[in-house]
């Protein structure tokens, strides 16, 4: 039991299929009601796809797990209508500081420019986030969330997937055209399908402590002056190891102490070991209470294929990274963003099932990008040899006075979206463009004016294919879809000129935007046939 939080217990409800004994076939079943499964359900519901969510437990995430939620996932949640309370209650931050001993070695700013609706990052305990998402699912009529439903077997043929599920009422079967397996790092679905999940285990251990610090004690701490991410290499209060500190909601601070591989996890979890570590950090007079303590080690690995027939893997079930960089949950939410519209297009008959192969194509690239960042950060934080430790310490010592060494300091590179520049869904540029909005990139937000009111671009892009134009363009029909046009200067306005600047929006420029708000194609002038061809390409229709 935590002092600042009481875990909810959601009621078990028997599934209609178990009651009647009939095997009901659903369009989509999501396994796992963590942040990823719940987000996937909300995304599908918003696209008009009814889905069933099964979770083997009856509550939210236990303990201290995901903390940081980055701008792009917040933008996705905003599209799903759930970001506002998270942003309101989470701790917003954008500056990170890295210390070596007592001196500042490196400082980064995740969002140095203004003009974005969502903040660079918020810190919010995972159980709070899940509770918000569960509430949103309860209000979405297309989401049918069932607790105490554990999947024991998965069989699939050409037409559907059959799941054998255990509930307090015994076993029953249900079917789905498509299954999203979002059942976490220890995924049963992955095991049941025999999918390979390989990678690198790191020989190091970390102590996680969630601490409520007395308000007077907090006021005296230099790290509490601004909500920032603070990371220490070899601090005086924890010599030879690293420490990471994040402020969460409700005055709860999350501290990660590096312990080294030889530490005894059972011993290190004991309050008589933990309390002196924290006291050394905060100072002898400061009062605090322990909310949560655990010891973890980690791995960097990913599933061989994100698509196994009619089963699609998302979140930690598909990839696992080290915690430095906040890339776990943030990547998973972007998996949902990528998968939802593709499932909807296939179910609606707008696209062939091959479109779902592009889910692996695009998200495996993102997972590998995250794994690379995560592995490199880990190699810096936990050097594997005496000579790499010497090089690491050389970087840190130089960084105190020498600006050139600071970009080499790696305490975790924080989650940013991985673009898909080589995706087969993209139509490559035919003419040069400036700026980062190349095909395969997530759309940058920008302040706009809509119907005389200030607003944001991403709010107006919606969640279907859309044409964003900086000149005349007409709606385009193809593949059973009709694309609306958002014309800058007509349908929406760009009073600060930031939209034009971020999209290199010279007069006549047209962007084809995907339902997950990524650029599919762009041209310097509108051409009906080219838009049709690009749309068909983005749906894998040729």
């Amino acid at each position, binding site marked *: 039991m935590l002092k600042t939080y009481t875990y909810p217990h959601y009621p078990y409800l028997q599934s209609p299929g178990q009651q009647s004994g009939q095997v009901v076939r659903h369009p989509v079943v999501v396994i796992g009601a963590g942040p990823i499964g719940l987000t996937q359900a909300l995304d599908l519901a918003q696209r008009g796809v009814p889905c069933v969510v099964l979770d083997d437990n009856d509550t939210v995430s236990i303990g201290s797990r995901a903390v940081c939620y980055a701008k792009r996932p917040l933008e996705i949640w905003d599209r799903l209508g759930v970001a506002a309370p998270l942003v309101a209650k989470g701790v917003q931050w954008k500056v990170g500081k890295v210390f070596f001993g007592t001196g500042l070695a490196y400082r980064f700013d995740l969002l140095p420019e203004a003009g974005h609706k969502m903040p660079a990052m918020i810190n919010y305990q995972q159980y709070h986030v899940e509770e918000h998402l569960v509430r949103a699912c309860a209000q979405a009529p297309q989401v049918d969330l069932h607790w105490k439903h554990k999947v024991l077997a998965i069989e699939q043929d050409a037409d559907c997937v059959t799941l054998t599920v255990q509930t307090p009422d015994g076993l029953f079967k249900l079917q789905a055209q498509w299954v999203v397996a979002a059942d976490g790092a220890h995924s049963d679905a992955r095991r049941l399908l025999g999918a390979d999940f390989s990678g690198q285990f790191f020989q190091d251990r970390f102590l996680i402590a969630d601490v409520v610090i007395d308000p007077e004690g907090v006021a005296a701490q230099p790290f509490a002056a601004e909500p920032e991410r603070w990371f220490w290499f070899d601090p005086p209060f924890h010599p030879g190891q690293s420490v990471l500190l994040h402020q969460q909601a409700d005055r709860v601070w999350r501290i990660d102490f590096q312990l080294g591989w030889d530490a005894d996890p059972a011993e290190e979890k004991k309050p008589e070991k933990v309390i002196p570590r924290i006291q050394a950090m905060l100072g002898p007079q400061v009062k605090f209470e322990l909310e949560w303590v655990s010891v973890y080690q980690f791995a960097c690995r990913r599933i061989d294929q994100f698509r196994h027939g009619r089963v699609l893997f998302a979140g930690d079930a598909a990839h696992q990274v080290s915690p430095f960089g906040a890339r776990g949950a943030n990547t998973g939410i972007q998996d949902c963003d990528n998968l939802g519209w593709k499932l909807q297009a296939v179910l609606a008959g707008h696209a062939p099932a091959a479109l779902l192969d592009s889910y692996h194509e695009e998200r495996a690239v993102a997972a590998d990008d995250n794994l690379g960042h995560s592995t490199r950060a880990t190699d810096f934080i936990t050097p594997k040899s005496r000579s790499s430790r*010497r*090089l690491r*310490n*050389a*970087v840190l*010592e*130089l960084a105190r006075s*020498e600006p*050139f*060494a600071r970009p*080499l300091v790696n305490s975790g590179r924080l989650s940013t979206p991985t673009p898909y520049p080589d995706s087969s869904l993209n139509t490559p540029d035919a003419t040069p463009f400036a700026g980062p909005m190349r095909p395969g990139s997530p759309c940058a937000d920008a302040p706009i004016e809509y119907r005389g009111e200030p607003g944001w671009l991403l709010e107006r892009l919606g969640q279907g294919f859309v044409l964003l134009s900086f000149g005349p363009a007409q709606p385009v029909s193809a593949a059973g879809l009709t694309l609306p046009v958002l014309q800058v200067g007509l349908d929406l306005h760009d009073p600060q000129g930031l939209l034009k600047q971020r999209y290199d929006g010279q007069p006549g420029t047209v962007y084809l935007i995907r339902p997950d708000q990524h650029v599919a194609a762009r041209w310097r002038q509108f051409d009906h046939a080219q838009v049709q061809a690009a749309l068909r390409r983005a749906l894998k229709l040729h």
Partner: protein
Amino acid sequence: MPLQRQPNIPEPDLFYAELIEAQRDLSDEQADMMQAKLVLILCNQVGERAVLSEAIALARSNTLAAAQPTT
């Protein structure tokens, strides 16, 4: 520009003496640290990733070759 593999340092003896002299009074640990820092400082000076890759590969292959028994 490819990696410079031909002599490029004027007054090589004086340069080498300066390098050795800089390690005087340092413990082995400090001398190792100084060399690590020198590597980083010079890598930044070069800056070109392709040249750095070539230099890293040369240092490694030369070290491995030196460890082989000569025939």
